[in-house]
Each structure stands twice: as structure tokens, then as C-alpha cells.
């Protein structure tokens, strides 16, 4: 019965695409709060019959509701009707507040109302902060050191792995992507990077290469440049990365 009364069977029409924009209420609690305010009802003593009628009436004006959320709105309708039926049960004594069938809904509404109020206040803060600008700080270069403590969250960790999976997925070893890279270009690039930065962490540099092929070419270039005595590569300790410097006495590349 509920279904026939309230189910506004979606009629496909060209306007359907615009439902989201017309949507006024984010969810059923939002709609309920609106009706309660409109009727100037005390949230702690909701005349459930009145509010249920209003709610169902609103649902029937389906153009106001985003169809994606229909199930959630209907669920609330069912809850309202259920509460109404509970209220109608014959009783010997007046309702105790604790067993008032409306209690759970009232609690939810009160909490939701608070969240809405908090949103309003946070929006004000957001507006104020939007006029305040902080600097984008570029970190000054410092000598490399071992990094001991960490300050990352579980999500950083999970996200890191997710990014890794995505990267793996997009890598197809049988297809060589990108343009052809010449050794000469790559060598010039390395020399240019060294000029700009002074020192290079070679593992990081290899990692930054787009493809395995490019990384391999970079590695051969590194060997070539060492052989040509244009750069120095040093691995300070076993397991540590290889650092590369331009040779001071090197002829201009």
C-alpha cells in the first residue's frame, strides 16, 4: 500500500537529466527538518500524522527530488508510517518519553540539525580563510641524510600502494611508449640537470624516467659520461644511492 501511495514511478523524460539541479533536499532528514520548520513544530513533540502527510505530499511532487535518492526518501516514508501506527495503538497510560516511538527519529533529527548548523558555521570559516593566503614554500636544499621518523597516515600508505597498482596496470611491457630517445639528448639532459642542481641522486633520477627503456638509456648515458670524465659518481656506502656530480675540471659539454 505504501508503495502505491508514494512510489513516484520514474517516468523517463528529457528533464530527468536536470533532476540533480532541481534537487532541494539532500536527504529525507533534510526534507523533514524543512517541514518541521515550515509548520513551526516543536521537534520534541512532532505531530506524526501531520508531518507524515506533509512528507508524503512532498514526495508526490517528485520533480523536487533527485531520483537517485528515491529509495532513501521512501525508506523514511515507511518509517514515518510505522511510527504513526505505533502511536495509534490503544494504550492504558500516556506515553513515557523513553518508549515514545518517535524518540529515535527525534534523536536523529536533533543530531542532523546540529550537523547542519556546524556546516553553516564551518562554511563561514571557509569563507574567511578563502581570503587568507599562505606561501608555497620551496624547501631549501640540505645535505642528504637518513630519514628516521615518519609522519604519514594509514591512508598515505594505502594510497601509495594504490598509486603503485595503477602505475603497474598502465605499464604494458610489450609496448614501448613515447618517442625514441637518443643517447645524445639524454646525456645533454643529465648534464643540464647537473648544472641546475649541482648534485643528482641517481636512483631517484632513474625512477623519474617515464619508461624502463628511458631509465636504461639514462643508465648507459651515466656510464658514458663517467667514461668521458665529465661527471663523478660515488656510492658512499653499500645499499646507498649513487650520487653524481659534474667534474669541476670537465670541459664544457
Amino acid at each position, binding site marked *: 500500500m505504501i508503495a502505491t501511495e508514494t512510489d513516484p514511478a520514474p517516468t523517463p523524460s528529457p528533464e530527468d537529466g536536470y533532476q540533480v539541479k532541481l534537487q532541494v533536499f539532500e536527504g529525507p532528514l533534510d526534507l523533514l527538518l524543512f517541514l518541521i520548520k515550515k509548520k513551526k513544530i516543536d521537534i520534541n513533540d512532532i505531530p506524526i500524522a501531520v508531518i507524515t502527510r506533509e512528507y508524503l505530499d512532498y514526495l508526490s511532487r517528485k520533480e523536487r527530488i533527485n531520483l537517485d535518492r528515491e529509495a532513501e526518501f521512501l525508506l523514511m516514508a515507511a518509517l514515518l508510517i510505522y511510527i504513526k501506527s505505533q502511536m495509534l495503538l490503544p494504550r492504558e497510560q500516556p506515553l513515557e518519553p523513553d518508549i515514545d516511538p518517535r524518540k529515535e527519529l527525534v534523536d536523529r533529527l536533533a543530531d542532523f540539525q546540529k*550537523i547542519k*548548523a556546524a556546516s553553516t558555521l564551518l562554511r563561514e570559516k571557509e569563507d574567511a580563510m578563502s581570503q587568507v593566503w599562505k606561501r608555497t614554500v620551496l624547501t631549501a636544499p640540505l645535505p642528504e641524510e637518513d630519514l628516521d621518523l615518519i609522519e604519514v597516515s594509514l591512508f598515505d600508505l*594505502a594510497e601509495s600502494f594504490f598509486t603503485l597498482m595503477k602505475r603497474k596496470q598502465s605499464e604494458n611491457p610489450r609496448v614501448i611508449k613515447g618517442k625514441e630517445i637518443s643517447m645524445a639528448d639524454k646525456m645533454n639532459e643529465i648534464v643540464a640537470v647537473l648544472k641546475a642542481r649541482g648534485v643528482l641522486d641517481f636512483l631517484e633520477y632513474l625512477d623519474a624516467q617515464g619508461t624502463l627503456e628511458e631509465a636504461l638509456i639514462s643508465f648507459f648515458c651515466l656510464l658514458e659520461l663517467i667514461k668521458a670524465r665529465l661527471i663523478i659518481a660515488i656510492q658512499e656506502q653499500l645499499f646507498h644511492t649513487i650520487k653524481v656530480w659534474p667534474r669541476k675540471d670537465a670541459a664544457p659539454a
Partner: protein
Amino acid sequence: MDNLKEIIDALIFISVEPLTAEKMKEVLTDVPEPDIAQALQELVARYESADGAIRIIQTAGGYVFSTKPAYDPYVRRLLQIERKKKLSSQALETLSAVAYHQPVTQSEISAIRSVDSTYALHTLLENKLIKIVGRKDAPGRPLLYRTTEKFLAYFGLNAIEDLPSEEELIKLMQEENS
């Protein structure tokens, strides 16, 4: 130390993240804590009352330089930004629900809002305004969410205790109802 204020000035200026009192202490090991606190306070006041366009604000548990609001139009003109992006109302509502109920699961949030909140949570996660902090000891062991430091900084809050209080919320609700 004679130039303690200036040292703190330099430290706040150079720090990548809001500089906490703890970090200041780590750098200024020989300086008594109250001295640091006082110098800091005087420094903040100095920028506040000075003519300059910049000042020090307290946010996310630390101190950081920022522009004064009056210069927003010029900054936006320089950066060629029409206006800063704001959160959607769904995202903001979801974020409020996380902030006031944390740590909280996805289905709890959806129940509070009476709407499925998966997508809003996803947006907030991507923007690093919330984070996963573990799992709830409940059937299905759902993931638990909390707000982040970035959340505090985004709203100019210093700590989670600075969220609008119960009284402030009630006051606002009464104003709206009358």
C-alpha cells in the same frame, strides 16, 4: 637571548608546515619555555599592528605566515585565480559529520545524514581533509575515519577543540528557528 623574537620570526618563515611550539623548543634548546611563549606572543602582536600585509596566524597546532584578508583581491589577480574553490554542500555536511563524530565509519555517516555518503567521503579523502585511522571493532570491521591536520588548517582552526561548541550550534539553531 636578545633577538629571540627575530629567531622565531625566521623559524616560522622558513618552516614548511605550521611551526609548532614543540619544534621551536627543539631548535631553541637553551631557551626557557616561557621566554619562547612570550617572544612568540609579542611577535604575533607586532605583525598584527604593523603596516605590512602579512601576519602570523595560529593554525593546525602551529604558527604560519599568511596575508591579511584585505589583500585577497590583489593576490588573486597575481595568481590569476577567480576565487578559491569551496567544498560542495554535501562534502561540507559529510565533513561536519566526521568532525563531530570521529572516529566514525562510512555507514554511520550515511545514517547521520540519511543519505549514502560514499562519494562525499571519497572526495574528502582525496583532498586529505579526512583520513583512514583503522577499523572499527564491529561486524565487517569497517574502516574508521578522522579529520586531518589539513582539515584544521583549511578552516583556520588550531585544534579540534576549536570546532564550534554545542552552545554555538544551539544558538545558531535557535536563531534560524525564530
